[in-house]
């Protein structure tokens, strides 16, 4: 019997993934990811700015908007946070932590500049593993930062309608979302070949964050912004997390969030691999 995955014969898939003999894809991915993690752990201060930025967003928005949209809005039409504005704004802070996924692109550019990338090319290593490893590290980084932000949120009064299991699901979505953002920055890093290029690409981050139901629900956005937000995957990620925090288990919104972040990750991964193929083409 011929075993196929998504219509591709298994041996062919194994060959594409593993790059002929040598280590299996899983081992490659693990070794490459571990190496990048060691790099991150040994240079912890480079991680600090993004954690601080996300924490800053959380405190500043709570400080500015809590009196308008928080408990005092209870009986009115702007009572979309159901009395707890921290619950409402926390998903935004978590999503903003995804900017730390952009370090993945810079990690990869470092590897291109130091020649590590080229050395991998001369070894039987799958290109997918070389690209996926920094994305995984980016996602882990976002996960860690989201965890820290969640902790901070709990300290200032966040309490999800779904209980602590809700936090786990939120972190899962954050992981996928972080992976997507990391893939995007990896692709940008490969395409530009410079740390500045990878950094500049993070500008996409701002429209992604703000052409979305950032401070108010989508229904409250004005016409054009509401239409534009419908095309922004961030919208569904934020809405899924908000549902978990405020309304409880609303599977439709959670599913949309998972699909939006998963698709984003898949697309950026493919885009990064295609970019890598172009960049490493023999000439």
């Amino acid at each position, binding site marked *: 019997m011929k075993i196929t995955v998504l219509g591709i014969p298994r041996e062919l898939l194994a060959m594409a993934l593993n*790059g*002929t*003999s*040598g*280590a299996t894809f899983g*081992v*490659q991915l693990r*070794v*490459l990811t*571990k*190496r990048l993690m*060691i*790099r991150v752990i*040994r*240079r912890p201060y480079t991680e600090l700015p993004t954690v601080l930025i996300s924490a800053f967003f959380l405190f500043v928005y709570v400080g500015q908007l809590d009196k308008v949209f928080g408990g005092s809005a209870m009986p009115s039409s702007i009572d979309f946070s159901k009395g707890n504005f921290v619950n409402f704004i926390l998903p935004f802070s978590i999503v903003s932590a995804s900017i730390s996924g952009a370090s993945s692109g810079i990690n990869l550019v470092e*590897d291109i500049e*130091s*020649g*590590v*990338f*080229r*050395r*991998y*090319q*001369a*070894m*039987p*290593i799958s290109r997918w593993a070389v690209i996926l490893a920094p994305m995984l590290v980016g996602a882990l980084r976002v996960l860690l930062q989201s965890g820290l932000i969640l902790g901070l949120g709990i300290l200032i009064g966040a309490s999800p309608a779904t209980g602590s299991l809700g936090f786990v699901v939120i972190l899962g979505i954050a992981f996928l979302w972080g992976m997507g953002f990391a893939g995007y920055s990896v692709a940008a890093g490969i395409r530009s070949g410079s740390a500045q290029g990878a950094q500049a690409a993070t500008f996409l981050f701002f429209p992604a964050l703000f052409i979305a139901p950032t401070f108010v629900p989508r229904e409250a956005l004005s016409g054009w912004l509401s239409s534009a937000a419908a095309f922004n995957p961030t919208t569904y990620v934020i809405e899924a997390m908000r549902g978990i925090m405020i309304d409880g288990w609303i599977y439709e919104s959670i599913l949309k969030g998972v699909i939006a972040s998963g698709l984003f990750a898949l697309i950026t991964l493919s885009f990064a691999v295609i970019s890598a193929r172009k960049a490493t083409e*023999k*000439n």
Partner: protein
Amino acid sequence: MLTTLLRPTNGSASILGLDVDKDDAAVRHKIGVALQENGIDEVLTGKELTQSTGQLWGLSKSKASKRSAELLSLVGLTDAANRRVKTYSGGMKRRLDLALSLIHKPEILFLDEPTTGLDPGSRRVLWNEIVRLRNEGVTIILTTQYLEEADTLADRIAIIDNGVVKVEGTPDDLKASIGGDIVMFSFETKETAERAANILKNSELIGRELRTTVENGPQSIPNLCSVLRDNKIEVVSVSSSRPTLDDVFLKVTGHKLETVKANENNSIGDPTRASSDGA
């Protein structure tokens, strides 16, 4: 190109019967490439680096660990195994690079100017290592700017000038191709040297010095000197030497010593092949 990192512009090449373009993945298993300490993650330790590279080549964790210890002791880095590569000296990094290129026991090893920029001590250590590998039967293709290095290490030498193989053979063959010994005269002034150059045929003028090739240096020096004395040309010093690869290089490339010195990046390639199985 032979290391499968570049695609041939035209024509084809094969290593151990495998086409470097079509079978590049298979070729990579047979060859090891040292890239002048490029591509070494300096945040990792020597041990971590060799171990992870072993695993990427498909060794199990315990085998990779064993191979790492083996190679680090081979290149004399056991004491530095747990230090980050950032703290290594240039020579240590080259040795680590060599260890990394040996992890999967390649049959052919490509070394790109392995000792460029190293102090004489480190160079000697690396040379010993290369000779040891050669004696184990590894075919080594080495490029170098140092002709002395090629002379010491190589069984066969090819001199490449502007991308073309000018000459190929064993060091002794190449030296013999000079056809005798080199006799070098030096004179008080340039003019004297020029006059002498007109008298001695087959001689080459280099500033105030004149070099000529004769069958037997020590025997012909008295003769040559007396010819010059008869023409009232005073010789400051004279010496005879066996030809070196420098002489071969100058002869086949047609470069004067001055231009070689002025142009350090001249494409002096010396692929030298050790062992007898050939590439």
